[in-house]
C-alpha cells in the first residue's frame, strides 16, 4: 500500500511538473512572440548591426552570389558594421508589408515602392534621415533624379534613398515578330499598329497570342495608368482630389484592349493575370507583346524564366499618335525604421551608397555582371542625371552585352516620367475590375465601368485626405 501511495505521489508530482512546464513553455513562447526591433544597434566598441531586406534569395543564384560578395566586401571595408541580409523575392508583398508596419518590426533598412510613402508615414514607422544625408555621405546626391527623391520626401523631411526609377515601354518578342513576317527593329508605336501586329502574331497558332495585359493583383490598374499617361490623360487631377480617367483617353485604351480580346481574338481567353505571368509566356515564346519596364527582361524573363537575351526588344508605350505623351514612372527605395539608432541610420546610408548609388560598384558593377553571364546594357535604372548618369552610361557601355539597337525606339522616345497617382495602390486596386471586365466580358460597357470606378476612386481619395 505504501509503495502504491508513493508511486501515485510521484505520478502526481510528475503531472504537477508537466503542468508547470507547459505554463512555462507558453510563457516563453508568448515572450518570444512579442515585438522587438529586428536587429541590435551599436554595441560595445562602436560595432553596429543593420538588417536589410530585399536581398536576392538563392533561387536567383547569380544575384544572390553578387549580393553576398558585396556584403562581404562592405563588411571588410567597414569592420564595425555587420549587415544581416533578409533574403526574399518578391521584395514586398502588400499584405505582409502592411502587417509589418502595423507591428513595427520592419528591418533597420527596409524596401518600399515609391507608392508606399503615405502608408509608411501614416503608420509612423519611418525615421527622419535628413540630418544624415549630405553631399559628403551620399556623393551622388545632387545627380539623383528629382522625382525619385521626391518619392521619399515629405515636406522638407527625407525618409529614405531611392534605388531604382523606371518608365515603361512595349516589350516585344523578336522571334515571334520575325516568324509573323514583321520587322522587330520597328516595334509598333500606335494602338492601330499594335492591333495589326498582334493579329499577325496570333495567326501563328499553337497557343501563341499577340498581346497580353494584367487584370489582377493591382497590376491591371497599374498598367491602365501607364497606358492612359501615354495617351495624354491622367488618373487623378493635379491636386490628387478626384479621379480623371473617365475621359476620351481612358475610353481609347480600354476600347483598344477590348477589340484585341473580342474582335481580333489576339489576346488569350485566360485573363485575371497578375505580375509574373506574362513574363513566363514571353520566355516560352507564347506572347508577342506586353507593357513593362526594361528590368522585366534582365531581372525576370532571362534569369528566372529561362528566356534568351537576344529574343527581346522594346518600343515606346502605345498611343494613338505614336508619340507617347508620357509614361507612368515609378521605382523603389529603402527607408529607415523608426526604431533605428543614429549609428544604424549612418551605417544603412553607407551601405546604400556602396550597393545602389555608386556607378561601377555594387549593383552597378557591370563588369562583374558580364563575367557572371548577366545581360548588361538595358536603358535602366534611370536614377541619375548629369555627371553620374554619364559615368553610369560609360561603365555600362564598356561591358554591354545587349544590342542597344533592339531598344533604340524606346530610348529615343524619351518618355516623360509622370510619377504615380495619389493613393496609387488603392487606385490601381479599383481599376483591376475594370480591366478584368473589359478583358472577359464581350458586352462590357466601358462608359459604365469608368463611371463606377470614378465614384469609387473619388471616395478613396476623400477618405485618404
Amino acid at each position, binding site marked *: 500500500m505504501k509503495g502504491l501511495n508513493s508511486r501515485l505521489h510521484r505520478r*502526481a508530482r510528475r*503531472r*504537477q511538473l*508537466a*503542468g*508547470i512546464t*507547459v*505554463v512555462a513553455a*507558453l510563457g516563453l513562447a*508568448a515572450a518570444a512572440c512579442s515585438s522587438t526591433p529586428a536587429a541590435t544597434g551599436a554595441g560595445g566598441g562602436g560595432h553596429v548591426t543593420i538588417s536589410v531586406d530585399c536581398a536576392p534569395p538563392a533561387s536567383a543564384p547569380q544575384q544572390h552570389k553578387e549580393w553576398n560578395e558585396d556584403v562581404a566586401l562592405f563588411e571588410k571595408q567597414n569592420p564595425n558594421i555587420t549587415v544581416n541580409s533578409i533574403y526574399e523575392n518578391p521584395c514586398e508583398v*502588400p*499584405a505582409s508589408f*502592411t*502587417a509589418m*508596419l*502595423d507591428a513595427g518590426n520592419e528591418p533597420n533598412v527596409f524596401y518600399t515602392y515609391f*507608392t*508606399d510613402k*503615405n*502608408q509608411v*508615414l*501614416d*503608420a*509612423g*514607422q519611418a525615421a527622419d534621415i535628413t540630418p544624415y544625408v549630405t553631399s559628403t555621405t551620399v556623393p551622388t546626391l545632387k545627380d539623383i533624379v528629382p522625382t525619385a527623391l521626391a518619392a521619399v520626401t515629405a515636406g522638407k523631411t527625407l525618409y529614405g534613398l531611392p534605388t531604382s526609377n523606371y518608365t515603361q515601354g512595349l516589350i516585344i518578342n523578336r522571334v515571334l515578330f520575325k516568324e509573323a513576317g514583321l520587322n522587330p527593329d520597328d516595334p509598333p508605336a500606335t494602338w492601330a499598329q499594335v492591333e495589326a501586329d498582334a493579329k499577325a502574331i496570333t495567326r501563328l497558332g499553337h*497557343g501563341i497570342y499577340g498581346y497580353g495585359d494584367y*487584370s*489582377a*493583383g*493591382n497590376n491591371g490598374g497599374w498598367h491602365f495608368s501607364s497606358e492612359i499617361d501615354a495617351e495624354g490623360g491622367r488618373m487623378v487631377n493635379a491636386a490628387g482630389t478626384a479621379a480623371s480617367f473617365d475621359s476620351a483617353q481612358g475610353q481609347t485604351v480600354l476600347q483598344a484592349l477590348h477589340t484585341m480580346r473580342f474582335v481580333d481574338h489576339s489576346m*488569350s*481567353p*485566360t*485573363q*485575371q*493575370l*497578375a505580375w509574373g505571368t506574362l513574363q513566363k509566356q514571353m520566355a516560352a515564346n507564347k506572347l508577342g507583346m506586353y507593357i513593362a519596364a526594361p528590368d522585366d527582361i534582365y531581372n525576370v524573363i532571362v534569369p528566372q524564366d529561362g528566356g534568351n537575351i537576344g529574343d527581346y526588344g522594346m518600343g515606346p508605350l502605345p498611343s494613338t499618335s505614336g508619340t507617347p505623351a508620357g509614361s507612368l514612372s515609378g521605382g523603389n527605395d529603402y527607408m529607415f525604421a*523608426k526604431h533605428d539608432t543614429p549609428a544604424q541610420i549612418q551605417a544603412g546610408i553607407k551601405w546604400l551608397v556602396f550597393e545602389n548609388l555608386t556607378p561601377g560598384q555594387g549593383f552597378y558593377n557591370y563588369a562583374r555582371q558580364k563575367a557572371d553571364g548577366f545581360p548588361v546594357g538595358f536603358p535602366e535604372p534611370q536614377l541619375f542625371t548629369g555627371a553620374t548618369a554619364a559615368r553610369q552610361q560609360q561603365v555600362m557601355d564598356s561591358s554591354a552585352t545587349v544590342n542597344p539597337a533592339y531598344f533604340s525606339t524606346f530610348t529615343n522616345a524619351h518618355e516623360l516620367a509622370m510619377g504615380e497617382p495619389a*493613393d*496609387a*495602390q*488603392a487606385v490601381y*486596386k479599383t481599376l*483591376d*475590375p475594370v480591366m*478584368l*471586365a473589359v478583358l*472577359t*466580358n464581350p*458586352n*462590357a460597357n466601358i462608359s459604365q465601368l469608368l463611371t463606377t470606378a470614378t*465614384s*469609387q476612386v473619388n*471616395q*478613396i481619395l476623400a*477618405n*485618404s485626405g
Partner: protein
Amino acid sequence: MADLATLRKPAALSPARSRAGDRLGPKVRRNASAHGFLIGAVLCFCFFSWYPMCREVVMSFQKTKLGVTSWAGWANYERIFHDPTFWVAWRNTVEFTVLALIIGYAVPFFVAILLNELRHARGYLRCLVYLPVMLPPTSALLLFAYFYDPTYGLFNDVLRHLDLPVSQWVQSPGTGVPSMAMISVVIAATWMNMGGATLIYLAALQNIPGELYEAAELDGAGLFRKIRHVTIPQTRLILSMLLLLQIVATMQMFVEAFILTNGGAGVNNNTLSVVNLIYQYAFALSGASNYDTASALGVVLMLVLAVFSGGYLWLTRQPER
C-alpha cells in the same frame, strides 16, 4: 518604527479565513496539475482568441494617422455602410452560403447514405471521399484554377471533346443569381470539404439500429420513405449541428474565391465576399488606418453570425422533458 515592526510581523489570520484556507489549500494542491494545464489553454484563448476579438472592437472605433491613434467614433462604420461594395459582398456571401447549402450540404449526406448501403469496397471508397480533405486548401484550389482555365483547362477540354459550348468558369462576367463564377467556386469548395462531413454523417448512419429499417421494410417503405422516416429523424441532431457549422463557415468564405480569382474578386466583383472585403480594407488598399475600417466590418460580421447562431440554437432547442 513601531509601525514598521507591526507591518513586518506575519499577519494573524482570523479563524474563519484560516479554515477556508485549510480547505482551499489541499484542493488547490490536489488539482495543481489540472490547473496548470487549464491555465495553458486559457492563456492560449486569451492571447489568440479573446484579446484579438476585444482589440478588434476597440480598433473599429479608432483611426491611425501619422503614427498617432485617436478615437474616430462611428466613422469607420459609416465608411463601410456607404461603400457600394459592402452590399455586393453581403449579397455574394449569402449567394455562396445558399449554393453551398444546396450543393455542399446535401451532397455529402447522400454520399454517406450511398456508402452506408454499399456492401463491397466501402473502406476504399471512404478513403477516396476523404482524400481531398488531406490536400492543403491552396493546392486543391490551384488545381481547380487549372481545371477552370478558359484556354488550357481540363473542363473546357472535356466540353470541346463533347462538342459543347465552353465556359469562362470563374472568369464569367455574369452578376445574376446564381452566377457561373459563384457556382464554380462552390463546386471547388464542395469537392475540397465534403470528405469530413461525409464521414460524420456515415458515423451517425451507422448508429441507427437496423431494426428500425427492418420494421420500415415490413411496413412496405421504399428507399426514400426510409430516408424520410428513419434516416433523417435519427440523424436530426447531427444534421442540425452540421448545418449551423456549415452556415457559419460558409459565411466566412475567403480562400476559395481569393485563390481562384488570383487575389481578386471576380469580374464585376461577382465573387467578392465579406471576408475578402475585410482583407481588401486591411491589406490591399493603402493606408495604415484601413485596419480600423477592416475591424469595423469584422465586428459587423461577428454580430451577424452571433445573432444567427443564437437564433438558430434557440429555434432548434430540444423541448424540456
